[in-house]
């Protein structure tokens, strides 16, 4: 899965597209892994831009949970931004909005995670 990474100083924005379900979640997990390794204190921050994600099933949510646990263990910062309305509802119903850092837009995610990245994002 191509996550179309874009770097803003210390923050990487990843943009998965399509459905994250049993057919694709393993690819998503593998594609995400190298970025999560670097999602640590003093290294990168990661924002997942979900604008292109139409659907996520429990197995996809589990990948996000594991990523979030890894980020926390490494004292890194992971944000998920710009959920489509249906995906936002799936996050709410599964209570993932209570355990993950969810932002209305990539810009708001960057604003929270890294002011330096936000400045570059706004300038771009």
């Amino acid at each position, binding site marked *: 899965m191509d996550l179309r990474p874009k770097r803003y100083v210390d923050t990487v924005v990843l943009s998965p597209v399509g459905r994250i379900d049993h057919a694709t979640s393993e690819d998503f997990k593998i594609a995400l892994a190298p970025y999560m390794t670097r999602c640590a204190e003093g290294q990168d921050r990661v924002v997942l831009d979900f604008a292109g994600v139409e*659907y996520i099933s*429990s*197995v996809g*949510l589990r990948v996000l949970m594991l990523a979030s646990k890894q980020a926390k263990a490494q004292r890194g910062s992971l944000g998920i931004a710009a959920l489509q309305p249906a995906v936002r509802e*799936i996050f709410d119903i*599964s209570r993932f909005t209570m*355990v993950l850092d969810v932002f209305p837009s990539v810009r708001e995610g960057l604003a929270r995670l890294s002011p330096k990245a936000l400045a570059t994002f706004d300038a771009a």
Partner: protein
Amino acid sequence: MPPDGRLTVKFWGTRGSIPVAMTSAEVRRKLIAALTRASGRKLETPEQAAAFLDRELDFAGSRTFGGNSSCVEIVTDRRDYVLCDLGSGARVFGNEVLGTRDASGQRFHAFMSHPHWDHIMGFPFFMPAYQAGNHIKIYGCHADLEEAFRGQHAAPCFPVDFSRLSATIEFVRLEPDREYEIAGLRVRPKLQRHGGDSYGYRFQAGDKVVVYSTDAEHKQDDLTEIKAFAEFFRDADLVIFDSQYSLAEATSIKEDWGHSSNVVGLELCQMAHAKRLCLYHHEPVSDDERIAALLAETRRLEEITRTDRRVEILAAYDGMEIAL
């Protein structure tokens, strides 16, 4: 069983982990809300009042999901009684039997998911067990099932020893993934992920299928297991499913605690083309509003994730009956 035979499923206990009761404060809160809503209405007869409740109040406003622990009855066209689990709901069921049929000469078949306390605790209060002439068969896949039943009757936990129960009580060990013909039903047990193991049961009579699957955790990234459960639920008319936790809890702080979620239940039913998903083994902390909200959310999730087939979503309550 004739091929057009119908099945009815009756829920006697639907709460997970431990029985609960509505508190005085909760009853009062419901009454205040209902009476406020009723002000100025002409409610002079019980019929008018009942019609008002049905029309104007939602489930949580006028009723309760109840608090007895696991016990479900499957009613076939035979005289024998068929039950899943003997939690505290079995006490209410037993009293109902005594009230409607002869106290003696009844036959019961109970299929046990596992011997955790909330699933066996109704048995010491199951009055038909104290009546000579009744025949009770307890089925399960656990080697220590009988020991668990005898243990909860033993001193110092209970005053009447198991050996003093007057009914004829038989324990029958079943093997998972084998099909049995019991009490007019085809029955297949399946091993489930739970502390000390639990077993689900797939019941079939004619073309009707009911799956009883409680106290089961599902690992979403174990595709082999997910597919096996979708097969176990295949084309079921009703799947009774442990949805005690939210998906977020089940994949984080309560991972490996042995329970599942509404989200995973729906996904499995969608994969299996099951017709109805019944949320079951409700979290004891949840009040009626919370369970009602869980039901509404699960219906909404079904709506936004529906492909070609619809899955009807229900939330079990003590006293609920579903005719299939």
